[in-house]
């Protein structure tokens, strides 16, 4: 199954992902309605998009008291069934990334649904900080990113 992998080294904090997510799911624009959230440490120029990783053994599914959290078999996405969600926030506490977001309009949690298999946030990210990828590909991509400073150092004699 594919999921949205995050390469924070490339994130510029532009929040484009939040805007298309919010508009496509809720019909209006606001970071507060986005299923992906960019967290910022601007003073050291670090930005980190947080989005549901659709864990294989998802703790949010386990802890959800109303069984509102469930996996969609076709895409592997772990989503909230709003009909059953009571807004208890258990999933937020259980998630290692605190990825679920409270929808201020309904008080219920919302998380990434992978846009049915064609995530728009990935399409909107023009710096490659987000990738719709599989386990194997993600592992290779991480190795490439982590190797870049070493290659730069070897080529130019400057470590960065």
């Amino acid at each position, binding site marked *: 199954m594919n999921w949205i992998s995050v390469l924070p080294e490339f994130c510029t904090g532009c929040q484009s992902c939040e805007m298309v997510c919010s508009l496509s799911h809720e019909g209006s624009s606001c970071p*507060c309605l986005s299923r992906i959230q960019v967290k*910022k440490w601007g003073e050291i120029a670090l930005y980190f998009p947080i989005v549901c990783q659709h864990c294989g053994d998802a703790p949010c599914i386990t802890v959800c008291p109303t069984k509102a959290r469930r996996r969609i078999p076709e895409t592997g996405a772990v989503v909230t069934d709003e009909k059953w969600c009571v807004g208890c926030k258990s999933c937020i506490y259980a998630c290692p990334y605190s990825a679920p977001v409270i929808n201020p309009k309904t008080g219920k949690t919302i998380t990434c649904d992978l846009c049915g298999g064609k995530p728009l946030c990935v399409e909107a990210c023009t710096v490659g900080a987000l990738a719709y990828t599989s386990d194997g590909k993600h592992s290779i991509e991480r190795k490439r990113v982590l190797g870049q400073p070493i290659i730069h150092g070897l080529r130019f004699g400057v470590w960065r």
Partner: protein
Amino acid sequence: MGKGWTGKRLHIDLGLQRAWTEEISPRDLEPGVGGRRLNGMFFLEQISSSISPSSPEFPVGLAVGPLSGTSAPCSGWTSVSAFSILSDPPGYAHGSLPGHWGPQLKFAGFDQCIVQGRAERPLYLWIDGEKVRFENAKTLWGKDTVETTVAIQEENEDRDAEVLCIGPAGEKGVPFANVVNRFSWTGDHVGLGYAFGAKNLKAIAIRGHQPVTLDQPDRFLELSLALRNRIDRDRKGSRLKEEGTLFFLGQNGRGGLGIKNFNEVSSPDLEEKWKTHYLREFLYGREGCFSCPVHCGRVTQVDRDYFGGVHLEAAWSLGPRIGINDWESTLRLYRLCQKQGLDPSSAGSLLSWIMNGFEERVLTAQDLGNNECRWGDVEAALRLLDWVVTGEEAGEIFRQGSLRAAQRLGKGLDLVAHVKGMDLPVRDPRSSMEYALGLALFPTEWDYLISMPPHDLPSSVASPGDGIADQAVAVEERKILADLTSLCPLVVARLSLISASDIAGLTAAATGMDSDAQTLLEEARKTMQVEKTLSGVSNNEGNGWGPLPRRFFKEQSYAAYGAYGASPLSKSDFEKEVSRYYDGKGESLPWITEKER
């Protein structure tokens, strides 16, 4: 209120410590544009009030357009307007602020924020939706822009709040102090930092959770994604993404940037070497404004220090313009400006004038507080900038900027590179008549790509049949159009990656108003007229244009220049072009000669 707008104006009186919300007249939003136009219309009413424009109580306007806070590409810009003491004579000025502050204003539920009055003691504003708190800034006063931003976010336990703040330079009344949003994005060339400081206003922090509703959300999403992809695939857009605003240096083989206060000019080789040095050794990553697919902001690494905000105008002004060719020194100066909240371009312009004056023995060491200041002397430059911020020693005179310091000392007036008191960008005016005319006709205009060679303009902007001045005006109109909708003026006007028709399509999908490219461009022209009126009213002078210093019309002053295919400006040709432009518009031209100035 219609879709795409909030229809509300947040009005804040610092003196009374009162904030209230006003409905914006639907008539003001009718054409489907806001931002710069909203500010212009507001100030047009305000200018006839009893508050003197030069008073610290005079308002500052921050406004956004219908595309702000949406997925429209490059929609993170805010229009800022104020009475600027930078120009000579002082007058109404508009600036475009990149970054993330404007969209938060929209999410807080406002299209415009007006801050008027003067607080009795230092404070900062915390705006959370429609709730406004006036917070004591005693502990923040004296803090630099980085410390201030973090302190406000930490104090309010919200790292997503957008902070627009000043540094010590603004607090202490340096006219060319700027305002800084999210550490890197600066509002320069309006003297906004000075205006904040004069109001005892350290910062405006803002946070909102009100979604922006759109008339046709699906259509809007489709248009914005298609436009985003187109910009990303474009060759110039890609180069801007890869190299930031340094992208046009070197390779295109034109040169033409001023070195050592325009006594020398850059060659493409020199530019290429200078650019490559930065890209290889100091570039760490990229930063982007809100909803931007280009990400032209650069993140720089110096040892363990990471910071954004380095762009061509700032770096060249604090580099070759003052005879510094090593990036280590440039970045030391830049970091000082960034933290202190000084406009780096004006700081570089001031230093270049001081160094030029000292080298030519027009200024003495005594004038400089017993300080020698030769080309490339970074230690002397750092010392001088410290004095400029604190007002100590010679800083008391030099903090006024090069023109006013020269006037006060009665020395070096002919070495000042300015139009109407506004420091020139880094491109030498002699490199192109069109560029020179742009500077003269719109002296207070400024952006990160103002020094891009006009020859690089897409044909859709610079149509060959027009007069030279008309081409400069066409760029200006597009820049205003970008400001009216909160889009990036670089992408719209300088690179033409977003056309007027694209903007019309997005605006129509956002607001439901039936607007087309011609209507929007007509609104841009009207806004230009409104600002001309404001400029004339606020400084009692003509139609806003300003002459270039005489030195740029002299015979070829440096041998290397001819090698890059440019010849010195002909004064008669220049004046002919300006006259032709004003004749064509049926306006009389009040010539201001160098002698009269």
